[in-house]
């Protein structure tokens, strides 16, 4: 009986130790897009001005000398279209993604955690594209692979 009570007390004490750091949350509120060379399949550095009609930032996001970028998804929509204007050239690409918004509370002391699942392509003008990660999560290195 004494052993049972000690085991019980230990279990309960450990189960109460539930306070988490907000940084321990693996969920991400953006997706990660990586660029690869179509011929060699190697990582490729790109420079893009990225725009979307939903973004409030007038000029969008600017990336240069990057092999990967993170882009937000709109929580109140189920799809988003991004325009990628290649810096220094007149070439533009379009990518439309569909997704499902999910919201959770990781810990009451942390802000609500938005993340996205069922990530899929609706349309794109890149040469080739793959979606190895359909959920936005820190554990996944890439959501969308773009070959150009």
């Amino acid at each position, binding site marked *: *009986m004494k052993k049972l009570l000690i085991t019980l007390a230990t279990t*309960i004490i450990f189960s109460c130790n539930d306070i988490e750091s907000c940084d321990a949350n693996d969920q991400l509120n953006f997706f990660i897009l990586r660029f690869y060379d179509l011929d060699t399949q190697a990582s490729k550095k790109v420079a893009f001005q990225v725009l979307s009609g939903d973004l409030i930032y007038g000029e969008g996001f600017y990336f240069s000398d990057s092999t990967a970028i993170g882009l*937000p998804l709109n929580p109140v929509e189920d799809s988003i279209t991004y325009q990628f204007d290649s810096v220094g050239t007149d070439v533009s690409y379009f990518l439309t993604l569909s997704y499902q918004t999910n919201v959770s509370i990781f810990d*009451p*002391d942390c802000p609500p955690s938005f993340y996205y699942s069922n990530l899929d392509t609706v349309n794109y003008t890149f040469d080739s594209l793959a979606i190895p990660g359909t959920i936005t999560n820190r554990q996944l290195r890439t959501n969308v692979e773009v070959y150009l």
Partner: protein
Amino acid sequence: MWRFTFSSLFCISLLAALGQEGEAPPKPKPVWKPHEVKIGINAIRSGRTAFGSGILTHEVQGVLAMHFLNVIIDLGTEKNTYKETYTYENSGNYLRFGGDWNFVKSKKSGNVTSLGLRYARATFNDQLDYTGDQGFGTLSYDFENPDLKARWVEVTFNLRGKVISNFYMGFTARWQLMRKIRGEGQLETFDIPGFGNTRRRNSTAFDYYLIWRIPLSKQSKPPSF
């Protein structure tokens, strides 16, 4: 030949001895007639309502004792509100139903040391209001799950001791297992009334009860089992 005769006689004597055991006086049959009812309140839940912030919860427990079996029903209500940089509200009711096997032999004492099983269900709703920037400017986001249902099973260990007259106190330790939720939309529910945090599918809990005992039959002397 002698060896065979002795072996046969030994076997016959063994069988005869076993036969003697069968003639022992039969044990008294257990009486399954209910002998007491107990009504309890969950002191931890009521205490959290009185002294905590953002939570309103109460639970009553009814127990019908029959022989060593206690049939138990718990009814509870819970409303949680988290107000930080957002507001999350979760409210609903829950029910647990099951039985405990009491290992205390004296029925008269009313004391309990038992192991039990429960099946639990909760019906509840939750909603989240948040204003923040998710990359599209500072906007208000509202998410709601109007019709949530959850179920799980529990293995319990219970101790109850007499304090005075027909008043008892004691705890229940719960191992909550196989939790399932139905009705979730975009918002993943954070709390289940009666279960707690949803991060784990299996969890543990601890409750303390204040209990009043109502004997159903007068027992002038403790029954002999």
